């Protein structure tokens, strides 16, 4: 996309001062903002994302959720460059269908994660500018979260935040879900209701401090009964 201003770091504006002659090159990437979050519980998983699609100073859409349902037990959250998010989810859907038709069963969350890793690394020299987080249930029915970097390095976590507000949310999750950096606190296992409430609170905080996060929050709760979605309004400014 031809951007009207050059981006230095993702999501940060370049300072408007004259720095000498600069060669303007076409950049195939754009940063469309958005935050994604996933939490794994004992028998559930939650994938949540905001629904704002922005570019530079503009908001393209207030209703563009970043969670995509892959199977009955897996949801993927993709944030970063929206064009690459769309293409990547299309490719994943196609590969899921191929697997289903040739192996006569749905791909498990772990298998989807491994496949996504190779898809992303196939573009090592021209990466998909997407931060992915997969949330779902593993073969035993326990919650699983797999977080990726844009070139395919991944690992299984209990909770992970990705996207523009990830650096703000991750420490909060470390503290509240991982009980890190606290002394003398009882480690209570996370219930589904408490997890959903925590996710909502965390996004409200993110919308306060990150300009690219806001408008609405889409929460997908994955249990063995299926996937339930709910939408919660956030700040629109």
């Amino acid at each position, binding site marked *: 996309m031809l951007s009207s201003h050059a981006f230095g770091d993702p999501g940060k504006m370049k300072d408007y001062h004259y720095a000498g002659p600069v060669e303007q090159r076409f950049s195939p990437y754009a940063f469309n903002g958005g935050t994604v979050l996933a939490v794994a519980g004992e028998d559930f998983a939650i994938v949540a994302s905001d629904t704002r699609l922005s570019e530079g100073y503009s908001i393209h859409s207030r209703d563009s959720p970043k969670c995509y349902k892959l199977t009955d037990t897996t949801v993927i959250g993709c944030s970063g460059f929206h064009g690459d998010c769309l293409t990547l989810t299309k490719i994943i859907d196609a590969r899921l269908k191929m697997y289903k038709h040739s192996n006569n069963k749905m791909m498990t969350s772990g298998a989807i994660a491994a496949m996504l890793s*190779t898809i992303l690394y196939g573009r090592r*020299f021209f990466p998909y500018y997407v931060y992915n987080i997969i949330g779902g249930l593993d073969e035993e029915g326990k919650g699983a979260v797999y977080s990726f970097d844009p*070139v395919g*390095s991944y690992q299984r976590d209990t909770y992970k935040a990705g996207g523009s507000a990830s650096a703000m949310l991750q420490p909060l999750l470390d503290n509240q879900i991982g009980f890190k950096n606290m002394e003398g606190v009882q480690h209570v296992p996370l219930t589904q209701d408490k997890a959903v409430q925590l996710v909502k609170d965390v996004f409200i905080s993110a919308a306060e401090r990150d300009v690219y996060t806001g408008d609405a929050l889409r929460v997908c709760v994955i249990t063995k009964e299926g996937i339930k979605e709910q939408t919660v309004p956030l700040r629109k400014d």
Partner: protein
Amino acid sequence: MALEDVCGFEETLLHRKWFPASYLEDSATSYRTTDSYNSGLRQEKSVGNNGTPLHFLMPALPYSTTFNRRRSFPVPPANHSVTVRRPFPLSHGTTTLGFIFQGGVIAAADTRASAGGLVACPAVHKITPIHSHLVVTSSGSGADCMLWERILAREIRLYQLRHRRRLSIRGAAKLLSFMLHPFKGTEVCVALTLCGWDKEAGNTDCVQRSEDSFSQDATAIAHSASPHRGPKLIYVCSDGARLQGDVFSVGSGSPYAYGVLDRELRWTLSKDEAVSLAREAVFRATHRDAYSGNNVDLFLITAKGWSQRKREDLKEEYYRDMERRAKRVEERKRLTEIDASR
């Protein structure tokens, strides 16, 4: 994946149907324009399918010739002078180490993955077992290491299936080095240390030659009867280096680790001493290096295979160290007071 290759499955029509890289290839040819704003994709016409880790898509660049060769490994274009600028940092920065002693090979690493100034993940596994007697410590770019370890494991397994014997550690290192060679000069950044134990003798005529030049040094004699059996430590990196040695430390924290290791490292260490030395080296490196930290992973490889020590949080070790220092300061103060009062 490995079994498909052995059975020659990739050559059949069914395989092309199951993994139709063709849908991407057709669109790639239509994107192939020659104006300077070319941002389409050019696909390698290689044998590998779109699912395996060896199939790479290259951005179509000006000045590069059409690349239409059939190879088993994809090769990036020679004059890769113009690259697409990435808007995000990748994970880098680490401390890993490995050394050989009389009880086997120790491999230790920290667990922090940093991307720019952010800790992308505080609990990464930098030491990966490949098979029962080979463990690989990785440093460099996280995604590159993960995928290249996967490729190495696949190729070692293929060798085992085809030749009915396990590839030696030196052979595995050579294989990895040759696989990485086409990517020399590109952004691939991989520095792996293969730590393993060779159970069988390798090439027999090599054994003859090296027995002649055997030095009478005590450590050389202690290094097992045949130089091709026993503990091995080999460093392979994407720049093309392939080095066999007794101690290696890789990463941004390696100078600090070397400092600690060089003091105490001897062939005659006991298992507990070696473990505590490795732990101490990683701990001191994580203390001084900003890009290393969090926990320490420790693996011990012996003739029986690899075993892993429980991952240890270095935060507790740091507090214990602070307490020890405080006690020493107290002790010193007490002694000087006693001296002064005399």
